[in-house]
């Protein structure tokens, strides 16, 4: 059965002007991201991976071309239209987490959830359930972000990203600033929610993180150079690891 496309781009371009010099980060990109996939965008540092992620999510506007999200062309949405679109359809997990420091853990999550008009009681119950699943105990719910460890904060970030059951979770280097054990915990959560049907698009330059995805896209010089289908993730799958390594070697990583 063919996969259903969630995001589709047509001739997507993104340029920046720095000191009067135009830099083309994304060049005429035609691609599709599929429902239920754990898609990973890899590439060397400065290749424009994050730029691509945010252009696809509607966080940033394309310079040219079209972005279709669930068959809706979001390219010409206004900032406010994009904001309303994001709250319903997208969840974000950032490298720096970006929890609101002035709010408790619970408030951070509920603030995102209430934007979609959900019932507060049901939402709180859902948040508590998700917290339990990611290992954030009740003793942390009333804490402030600066009272959490990096791993705990990122797990809260993931709960915030999925609280609205978005069509797609966009993760930008989610383990970039975590130690090894915290990284594993975060990746396990992402893998688990993907296995429960959540579509994820993740940017990383870490092979260990990339191994969790079933579809690897290698981004270089403003376009997709190659793709690799790793299939569903299994713990201790050496063949998967070798296949990814070979793909990346082929891509010149």
């Amino acid at each position: 059965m063919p996969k259903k496309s969630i995001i589709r781009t047509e001739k997507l371009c993104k340029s920046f002007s720095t000191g009067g010099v135009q830099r083309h980060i994304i060049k005429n990109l035609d691609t599709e991201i599929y429902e239920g996939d754990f898609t990973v965008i890899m590439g060397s540092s400065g290749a424009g991976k994050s730029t691509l992620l945010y252009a696809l999510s509607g966080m940033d506007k394309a310079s040219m071309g079209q972005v279709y999200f669930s068959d809706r062309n979001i390219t010409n949405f206004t900032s406010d239209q994009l904001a309303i679109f994001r709250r319903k359809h997208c969840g974000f997990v950032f490298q720096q987490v970006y929890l609101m420091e002035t709010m408790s853990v619970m408030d951070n999550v509920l603030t995102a959830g209430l934007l979609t008009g959900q019932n507060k009681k049901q939402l709180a119950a859902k948040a508590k359930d998700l917290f339990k699943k990611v290992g954030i105990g009740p003793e942390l719910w009333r804490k402030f972000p600066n009272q959490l460890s990096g791993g705990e904060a990122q797990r809260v970030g993931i709960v915030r990203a999925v609280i609205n059951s978005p069509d797609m979770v966009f993760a930008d280097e989610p383990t970039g600033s975590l130690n090894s054990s915290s990284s594993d915990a975060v990746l396990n959560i992402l893998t688990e929610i993907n296995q429960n049907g959540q579509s994820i698009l993740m940017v990383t330059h870490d092979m260990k993180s990339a191994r969790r995805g079933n579809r690897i896209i290698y981004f270089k010089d403003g376009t997709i150079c190659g793709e690799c289908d790793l299939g569903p993730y299994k713990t201790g799958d050496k063949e998967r690891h070798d296949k990814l390594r070979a793909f990346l070697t082929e891509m010149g990583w």
Partner: protein
Amino acid sequence: MLTKLIKSNFRNDLSHMISFVLIVVLSSFMLQFGLCIVMGYNNHYDTKAEELNSADVILYVYQYDDDVSNEENVANYIENDPSIETYEEQMFTICECEVIFNEDNFDSISSEDKETFNMRFGALDDYGEIGAPMFIERSDEEYANPIYLPYIALKGRFRNKYSIGDEIKMKINGKEYSFTLAGSYETLSGASPVYLSSYDFIQIKDDDNMNRFFDIQLKDGVNTEEYVQAMLADFNIKGLDAYYYSLPETIKASLYMINIVSAILCVFAVIITLVVVTVIYFRISNSIEQNIVNLGALKSLGYTGSQLRLAQILEFTITSSVGFAISTVLLYISLPIFEERLLRRMTGTIWKPPFNLTAFLITGAFTVGATMIVSYLSTMRISTIDPVTAIRFGLKSHTFKKNSFPVEITSGPIVWILSLKSAFRNKKQNLLIIFIMAVVGITLSISVFFTYNIAYKTMNLYKLLSDTSSEASLFFEENTDAEDIRDIPGVDKAWTEMSIVATIKGTLTEITVSDDWAYVNNMNLTEGRVPVLSNEIVIGNTLADNCDIKVGDEIEVACSGYEGTYVVTGLCQTTYNFGVVARMTADGLEALNIEYSPHWVEMTFSVTDYESSKNVLENIQEIYGDKLYYYSNAYDYIKNGDDVDLMVAKALCFVFIIVSIVIIFLSMVLLVKTIIIKSQKEIGIKKSLGFTSSQLRMELTLSLMPNIVIGLAIGSLIGFMNANRFLSLILKNLGIYRSTLEELPWMPLASVVSGTVVTFILVWFLSHRIKKISAYKLIRE
């Protein structure tokens, strides 16, 4: 190195600094303006008196053909007085004249169409050297019937209706004349004459009513006020009749409004400066919190704490110095315009504002000094920053002990909940907002109070400043009583009055006499009760203070060689004669051997608008016919708006409102920008979660409202409860000890509501910067 740091601070803070400069410009402009005019005019009168060669005392007596003894005795007294340096004698006539403003209504007796007063007339060719007219404007053309007016009369009594070359229609001693305005002149004399050509003067002069004037200059070192009191006491003993004007009293009368305007401007300048220093403290504290990592990094690079502090102190000091410099330039550009348009009308003299070094230094020291001190104190924290801790952890105080209004249990839309959370999060910011808005509340409630009592119900102020709170005066040819007038529709109260001049404890006092004070609408009593019995008297607060008289005391009143003893039953307030007044009963006059023969009636209306009051007076005119020769209606003066005092009072109302709006605007500009910069990370995160700009703007606006309303409420109540006290304080020198303008319960509410609405709109407008913050920018940075 330091220059680079200061430049960098300016670059980062440019928009803040522009707002800051504007608020400093306003405060230092007001302070320097107030100081300049109060100091300038005090010096101005000394030099002007010399320039105009003014008389220290002007004494005049009536000439009687059948008895020349009084005038001769007075002349002898002056001739032999060792305190007198020099004097000149001139003959003038004091005539009753009517200025006809509306030729179509030539026979009207209404104050709307004409003004009736006694005026001193003289021939232009006859003036001497003392107090010779110094022309402000004079026509080059030769007119057949020229008239030269004191400038202050041209703008006051003549209602500012005439320019050079205009025809002035007048009735003098009942005969009609037409003159052409040929010039106006400066004077410091309270009895400045209207000059006519010699021919016209002969035509109008009343030989039975000529006055012999003595323009007296005293020897150096003689105190004019003491001299006048001693001379009057002597005259009283010797039974001489003479009237006087003294230079200090005239100057005092000219200065009172200048002093009031100056005091109000200075008070408001200080209030604005308080707001400025509060904002500086807030700005620097926030800047340290925001840039803690940068400050740590700079310290690690080798900058010392003192250098970093100095950079911030200099940034604000330079900015306030720039604001102060701009305000000084603006002041000296605008001061001549204010002088010509307003101050000259108030004083009747030309003042060429010189550069006032003292005002400049005081304002500079206050404005720039306050900025330096507050910057110095606010930056103390920088010295204690440890570079390593700052770079790694930021500020240690950045913890939140209480999660106010948890989202899970707080009802309402998410924007509302987030606003509540923000509103009670930052105590320092909240105190700042409450303080600033309390200041705004004070100025706003005083504005509402003044606007209501001055601009809307001008009659309230008119009554406060007037003698016995009457609204109309009726002048009759013969003795009259008020009984029939009380029955006329539209008349509320009516009472007869006459006035005498007597001496109380050596002070020449204007005494108003009425047959029944119970009819007087409001005597402006501040203590005690009205006089009822023949031996009772009420005196003005100023007189009571000057002579140490209290309610219950017995005082001697002397007039024309007779004396009576009276019990003080109360104290009253009035601006008339600066509060050196008294009130007694008609029966009380017997002791002074004076017959009560009132020629005028004071009255109040039961109607409250101009048209109705006019109809009532026209009806009275119809009833009394020729017996009534003139009436004045307070509603006319209010409607015309020519009264300088009312004009200044309205201008001050305008200043209050402008100051309130400017404080709101500039403080909100600084505050909102600071809050947005401080929370741009959170705004970016919220945008990434799907908050729209409008939601975030509403959140910010609503989050400021609780503290804004609290501040406004506190300030409005303080302002409301003290508005009359504040007014009493500034009017005390005028004789008003207890202002009783209307205080209505809705006034503080109105200032809270209007302040909240204005602030809400302003914050919403200023928060448009939120639109520029994007979630993506946050991530990229």
